[in-house]
């Protein structure tokens, strides 16, 4: 990996599930041990960037907003150019960075990052969106590197069985990790930060191959020799 190249971590998921808040949590917990940067893709430019800046968890200059022309899906998938330029500029201006978090604008269940933009991605759901969402599946739910079931502290108020929701999600994911998260639950926050820490080390040593969750199976990833491998998993 090029010396100024960071681990690029995407955060996607529907509107209002807590992507910005998750990024703020990661920054708050890890800013002392990892050199972090953030790119936001809000529909109206800088709302998320402002939220993160005002959270005071990271040097405001390390949080940049990219316009998406009201096309958040395009910005992380079909045409990643503006985001890639923003990531590379951030890496250059604050070199070396360990992790750049790229926050997708809130979209629907089908939006996932192109492997041309990020090395790994987190997909965020929340209990308030309904307990059956995880069971409905979709590329992000089934194949993102990490699935978050967020706001578990709200479960009693919205009538959702968190355990069942996590079980549904795990079944849809073929063993890939799921974390039931609440920012008021330190153990779950520790689980999240440990995943980020481990993944960062894994990517840094070249042990990680970006996998495209894809719009649907079959999906593709780049093999060791650089060729594109497309296949259908058995799950």
């Amino acid at each position, binding site marked *: 990996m090029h010396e100024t190249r960071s681990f690029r971590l995407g955060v996607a998921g529907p509107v209002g599930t807590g992507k910005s808040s998750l990024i703020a949590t990661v920054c708050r917990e890890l800013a002392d041990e990892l050199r972090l940067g953030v790119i936001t893709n809000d529909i109206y*430019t800088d709302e998320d960037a402002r939220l993160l800046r005002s959270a005071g968890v990271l040097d405001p200059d390390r949080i940049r907003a990219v316009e*998406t*022309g009201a096309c958040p899906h*395009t*910005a992380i998938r079909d*045409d990643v*150019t*503006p985001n890639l330029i923003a990531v590379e500029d951030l890496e250059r201006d604050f070199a070396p960075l360990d992790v750049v978090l790229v926050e997708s604008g809130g979209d629907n269940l089908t939006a996932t990052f192109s492997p041309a933009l990020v090395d790994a991605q987190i997909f965020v759901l929340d209990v308030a969106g309904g307990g059956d969402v995880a069971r409905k599946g979709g590329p992000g739910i089934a194949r993102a590197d990490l699935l978050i079931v967020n706001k578990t502290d709200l479960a009693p108020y919205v009538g959702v069985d968190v355990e069942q929701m996590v079980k549904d999600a795990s079944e849809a994911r073929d063993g890939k990790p799921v974390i039931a998260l609440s920012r008021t639950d330190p153990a779950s926050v520790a689980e999240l930060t440990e995943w980020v820490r481990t993944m960062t080390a894994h990517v840094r040593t070249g042990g990680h191959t970006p996998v495209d969750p894809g719009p649907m199976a079959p999906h593709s990833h780049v093999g060791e020799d650089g060729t594109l491998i497309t296949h259908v998993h058995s799950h």
Partner: protein
Amino acid sequence: MSTAELVALMLTDGRLPTGGHTQSAGLEPAVRAGLGADGKQLADVTTYARDRLHTVTRVEAAVAVLARYITHSHQSEGLRLVEGAWAARTSSQVLRGVSRRQGRAYLRLAGRVWPEVLEHLQADSEVPRPIVIGVIGAVTGLSAEQVARIIAYDDVQSVVSASLKLLPVDPAEAATWLAGLHDDIEELVADVSPLTDIEKIPANGAPLIDQFAQNHATERMRLFHA
């Protein structure tokens, strides 16, 4: 076999990954300043696109034509002179920045698709967009007319397609506006495509467009980069 016609189609296709979805050709700040009168005066969109063809877009197309011509004539310092002429005619610092950012996106793609471009322009540099388009045109065999038409068409299409997101516009109506501007586009093409002298690049300006762009850069609520 690649043909100039196909390259020209690629370069005007909004699906080409060059960040076109982030651009409104200044329409968003213009709408914020009252263009379209909250949807009660939609014909303003066509007038705005036409005004651009007569001013800023004319300059941009001429710059692209000269960049193509200079690249063909192997004057290595020539592109710098074209860039200077462009900068002198693009008085808004914000708009110069926007064009350089877009140029970088095009150059990034061109370096992959038409690598010969990198014999004339430094990879990943912030070169104004019309210069990158002109150089792509030179290495792919586009005519001066095609290069000018790409700039003009793309500008009108940016305005018209952004109007769908900014105003209550029927998409079929928007396409009709676009077709209605064909004569203006071809007039521009005929005017600027014969240019071979940097000093003859027109210097038409649109101060309000500059002012809107400056305002937009500090605007909090933005759909489009510019």
